[in-house]
């Protein structure tokens, strides 16, 4: 293989010397020989496996619209309005007001009564707790001497008695 990107007559370019003895030509030949040694690298087996898998991977990834447009026994796009109508019907059914049955009403009442009883019980217990704490504290402050609650005066009183 020789490179043919040069213009003009070789004799004029190379000062009258025959082209095959020119250093440029010799180097070009050597370069060609080196290029001939450079093999096209073989693709690694892992890559080959990946490339072989492409058709099945891509077929699996076909998007829904491609499926709709794909040729089949009938036009698949007619499924779109059918699907939309089904969804609309489902929505309408779900949005309609529904009358509960007698059993459901009774069950709800029972559940509500249980819930209220728990709330009442919790309220009573909380009230009792508040009453006991506040009542006790109030009783102490009324019954005991005020000076008992002041550490300094209590200490002086004890010293006096001893």
């Amino acid at each position: 293989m020789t490179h043919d990107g040069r213009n003009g007559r070789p004799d004029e370019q190379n000062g009258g010397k025959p082209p095959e003895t020119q250093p440029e030509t010799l180097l070009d030949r050597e370069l060609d020989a080196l290029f001939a040694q450079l093999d096209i690298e073989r693709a690694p087996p892992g890559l080959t496996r990946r490339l072989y898998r492409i058709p099945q991977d891509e077929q699996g990834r076909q998007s829904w619209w491609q499926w709709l447009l794909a040729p089949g026994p009938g036009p698949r796009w007619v499924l779109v309005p059918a699907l939309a109508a089904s969804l609309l019907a489902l929505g309408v059914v779900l949005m309609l007001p529904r009358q509960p049955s007698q059993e459901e009403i009774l069950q709800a009442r029972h559940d509500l009564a249980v819930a209220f009883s728990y709330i009442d019980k919790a309220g009573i217990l909380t009230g009792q707790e508040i009453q006991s704490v506040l009542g006790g504290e109030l009783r102490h402050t009324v019954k005991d001497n005020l000076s008992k609650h002041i550490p300094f005066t209590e200490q002086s009183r004890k010293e006096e008695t001893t």
Partner: protein
Amino acid sequence: MSRKFRQWVDDYQDQAWTLARYLLKDSAEAQDACQEAFVKLWKNQDRIDPERIRPWLMKVTRNLCLDRLRRRHPTQEWQEWQQADESPGPMQGAEQHQLGEWLKHSINGLTEPYRSLVVLRDVHQHSYEEVASVLELSLPQVKVYLHRARKQLREQLAEVRP
């Protein structure tokens, strides 16, 4: 369809792989770029002229590699990569196989589009027309650029020859 694709994989994977390896210098990234290119081939197979599969695939592979390089080198690193790569040092007294390695290294040292040109034309032995189609250049441009690329390689070869 899948069998035809498998045949394309067998025929062109090595060339796509070699080009990606030269451009990206990274095995994992080159594999990803090749896979991406073949996925595009699978998706566009109906739109591609069967006679033009190879140049189409090479062009897509190259563009994907360049995109990856731009992403890898977001700012100045990309410009530096475009301008010059590390050039090989002198290899006085090197053996022929070492010269082969030197040549690979020197090809990597070329800037774009010279690198792709040399790989496609001198390593893959594609026709000038095919190279012009892959690189979106005119035929005279391909010849001129290839002449420049080989001139660079010749000059480097002259320095390292025993």
